[in-house]
């Protein structure tokens, strides 16, 4: 199968129903996307599929052939992604940091679709879990990124 990830093309030889998460992490060695639960509960595995925030742990690899996949590794090459990262650093969002790749991807997808999100938009899009409870810092960073 041929995948387009971060603008590059990769040939992968895996079972078609392999979750995209494990292709990205193990087959292709890009470990910024995290495994947290495997059942689309936590969102640590969030990537962008054609700009949409998508939980890669339950997304089979055959379903994303022909799409543009973006992972955290390329986030700073993206206009909105760069703003989000800067806002994340400025707001000192991460603690343990394990969920933050997914949070940054979710925020980037939000700003791509809704450049000036309302509080409800933010609450609706930023649903990934953070066991360190960085939620207030996350909301503040999303608001700041939207204004950047």
């Amino acid at each position: 199968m041929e995948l387009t990830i971060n603008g590059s093309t990769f040939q992968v030889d895996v079972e078609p129903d392999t979750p995209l998460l494990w292709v990205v992490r193990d087959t292709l060695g890009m470990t910024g996307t995290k495994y947290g639960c495997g059942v689309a509960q936590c969102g640590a595995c969030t990537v962008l599929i054609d700009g949409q925030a998508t939980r890669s742990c339950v997304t089979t690899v055959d379903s994303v052939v022909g799409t543009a996949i973006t992972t955290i590794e390329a986030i700073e090459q993206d206009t909105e992604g760069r703003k989000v990262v800067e806002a994340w650093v400025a707001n000192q969002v991460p603690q343990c940091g394990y969920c933050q790749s997914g949070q940054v991807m979710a925020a980037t997808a939000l700003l791509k679709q809704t450049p000036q999100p309302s509080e409800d938009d933010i609450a609706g899009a930023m649903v990934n879990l953070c066991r360190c409870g960085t939620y207030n810092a996350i909301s503040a960073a999303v608001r700041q990124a939207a204004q950047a």
Partner: protein
Amino acid sequence: MNDMTPVRNHRSTGSDDGPLNISRRGFLGGAAALILSVTVPVGRARAQAAATVAPGTRVNAFLEIRSDSTVLFRSAFIEGGQGIFTAMAQIVGEELDVDPVNFTVEGAPPGPDYLLTGGGRFTGGSMSVRMSYETMRKLGASARQMLLQAAAARLGLSISELSTEPGRVVHAASGRAIPYGELADAAAALSVPTDVVLRGRADFRWIGKPVARLDARDKSTGRAHYAIDLKVDGMLHAAVQHSPRLGGEPGALTNEAEVQAMPGMHSIHRLPGAVAVLADSWWRARRAVEALQVTWTEPAAATPRAMPADFSSETHKAMLKSTPGDGVAYEQEGDAAGTLAGAARIVEATYDAPYLVHGQLEPPSAIARWNADGTLELWIPNQAPEMFQAEAAMVAGIEPGKVIIHSPMLGGFFGRHFLYQTANPFPQAILLAKAAGRPVKLIWSREEEFLRDTLRPMGVARFRAGLDGDGLPVALDAVAVGEGPTGRWFGRQPDKVDSSAVEGIAGKLYAIANRRVGQIHVDDPAIIGFWRSVGHSMNDFFYETFFDEMADAGQQDPYELRLRLLADSPRHSNLLQAVADLAGGWKRGPYAAEDGSRRARGVAMASPFGSEVATIAEVSLRDGEVVVHQVWVAIDPGSIVNPAIIEAQVNSAVALGLSSALLEEVVYVDGMPQARNFDGYPILPPDHMPRVHVRIVESGEPMGGIGEPGLPGVPPAVVNAASVLTGQRIRSLPLSKLDLKGMEG
């Protein structure tokens, strides 16, 4: 842990490998020049290590100054989100005179230099900064002194003519300056001074300031590496399926041949209490191991810690609640029994709190590699490298000195990374790597983690208070029933109370003249562990919520009663007033908020881990559920290193405390946990996060902890507020079990 005695007693036996771990150095690569450490030959370092090392004094074990004057610092403490790497850079950088931003910090290997927590080494108990603060300042100051000496020799001047600016030695008279990087080699050959002068507090540039975290950018861009992200050449991927009940062993594998034929398969293995599959990717290994049809045997008689097949958390709770007696006394003052007998009014209540999992988002993993030289190399999440090293050596059957431990950044701390034998994947990885003759990386799926994580113990507490004619408490008798994790893991003396079972019920500062706190030990059939704030995580809920029951029974306002009973304790009464001030003044409610909701506030205090905390929560009821709008926390840790990280840690502790109060409960039926992932065990989602307001009070008292203290006050403050709205006392967590429909008012 509040009681640090066990850690002190648990001095590692297996760490004579010296601070210079050669195989580790290969990783550092890069920077050619240096270095305050490489010039010490390994042989000499080992000889020194074998002699008595005063931990935290040998500059070379901690610091490398690179040619570009940046610093690599090896931290005795492991980073898991609490910000300790940044704090270390602030503390050492302040005295070394290097801006913390120019530090790279990593977890130190095992070694005698790093035994900074009372003669042992342990990242936990909110101990890191307070136990190492002076030592690390002296270390930084010593290194600065060595750099000054080297510069003096090079310039032919006396040290008194020189000073430093961040990252360089300067000679003010001539305007000359030498970057630290150019002095590091010469400085490394000097002996470490013993009498350095530390900077005055008024001169601090970085200590006490909101210095940015060193890891924020890497963690915002996916570049931070956790154990689960690492790989070594030639490794196989491993997945396991555990016995549903601890103690069971794998019997027949009915479809072994079929599974062996699955794609990418390497091999199938039987392990103690588990089966494992090795494959060329983790997903394939996981699929295969989960496809294995395993017959699990019942545990042999006398199998230690075997999970009974009929164990249920509900039955265990009922048993704890009905266990009679006063237990072993832990704290006694005056005559509680006599005063209760003559009291004008008696208030009684029994409280309980459930089992909890840690729920750190990084699932457990381990990489094991047997090296050609007979050493075993492990990359493992852990909070005590020497303890893990000793255990790994026992599992592997080799000397501890032959076990090389790498301690990566942790994807969540919360007490999960202690040496819990049945809850860590590294023993399995060691056995699998040995069997396969290749390095192995093992990941536990979230479902296996829910099965084998250690639990915050279930707890029950019974209270009886006596009030006088004015409604003021004059006697309090409390009995905690259950088992504490400190006793479980460090040994329990039958005639003594494990402090982790009573902390938060004992140690309260209210002036109630006659008190008795006792504990009845009941073995917990589950594998219990440390969970952020340990006994305080439930005991302060028990006590501080019962406190409001006493206040209500005596027709006292709960805030005013606390203030009154703390009148002789200015540190605590000030803190209580500080949190009320932060919240715009104390008001209990109910009152109508601007959005029309009916709200109330609850207050609680706690004295965990050397710090003092006062908490107020504002709640309403919506659709039969408790909604927490705001939490105000005043925290007095004595003195501080980084106010921004403290505020973040308090936010984090509020989130976890609230999660436990609202949502979390591990339920066992037939000896098995009913939830195996977050779909069955909800943790606090973003839309439940309240606004958090933090005030830091520096009383100047001895430095206390930061990582845990913000947690214990949250559940009681929330429940006290909720009880105002429901008109009923709530004595059991989590609140999601309650149906509060119709009580919105």
